[in-house]
């Protein structure tokens, strides 16, 4: 489950940031996102979150979005994994 989520999240970031295939594989837990990548402005973040909802089958409440969750690849992944585990607890 965690691995699936990680692959999907890398793919979504590849699509939103227009990265070359494989480039997002180099993202480590401490790789900076919001506030570190100039192209990731509020409009792009909104797009990223909407795409995450669609492809990861989660719902993100606006209250849950904060700078900390978006700061690094690791924190974003942690947020999504928690979301998906909560939703499917007992399923897998």
């Amino acid at each position, binding site marked *: 489950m965690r691995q699936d989520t990680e692959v999907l999240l890398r793919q979504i970031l590849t*699509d*939103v940031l227009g990265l070359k295939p494989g480039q997002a594989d180099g993202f480590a837990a401490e790789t900076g996102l919001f506030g570190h990548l100039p*192209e990731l402005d*509020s409009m*792009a973040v*909104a797009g990223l979150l*909407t795409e995450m909802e669609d492809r990861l089958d989660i719902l993100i409440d*606006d209250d849950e*979005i904060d700078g900390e969750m978006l700061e690094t690849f690791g924190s974003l992944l942690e947020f999504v994994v928690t979301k998906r585990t909560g939703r499917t607890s007992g399923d897998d």
Partner: protein
Amino acid sequence: MTPASWPCPRPDGTNGAELALAFDDFRRWRLLIVPALFDEANRMRRFTVEVMRRLDNAGVDCFLPDLPGCNESLQPLEKQTPETWHAAMTAAASHFRASHVLGIRGGALFMPAGLPGWRYAPAKGATILRQMMRARILASREAGRVESQEQLLAEGLDKGLELSGYRLGGEFLGAFQSAVPKVSAGVSDIEQGMLGGSGLWLRAEPDEDREQADALAAILAIGIKA
């Protein structure tokens, strides 16, 4: 490619000029393209024109009109409604004698009725609105203001709302939030998977993709001439 002008109906019953990008060689096959909306329009414009160039080379005339209040239009965006946009695209189709129509993303919501064609990755009004409201909430939060989608929508329905630099009227918001692309005879969907790669409307920065433009133009040219 030349700019062309077309008579667009105004809410007061008169007509005013709007612009379109046109490849017009008085050919038999004539495609009207209803553009993607708002921020997505910027990110998709170059790609859309690249598809038009390919269709022109394949012997298809194509037309990309401005929605009133958007792009080069001098009309106030705040006064537009989904109905005025639909009427505008119907008038453009008739003026340019379109034989086919393509709606891109949210543009699929405003396709003129009665023409065969395609919807490329059609999007619901609610999805587009949700994303724009979220962008505003994030930007406001950075500036130290707390807003919510419910509160923004309630306020917007009453007094209009500015989202990503687009000033939308209350009437527009009311109708747009429940707008869903209509299924109609002779119109089929082109999913992103058919073009390969990821949709360019997702990109944080406007981008282009030759392979995707080739693929979309090929699907359209083959379909138009079938």
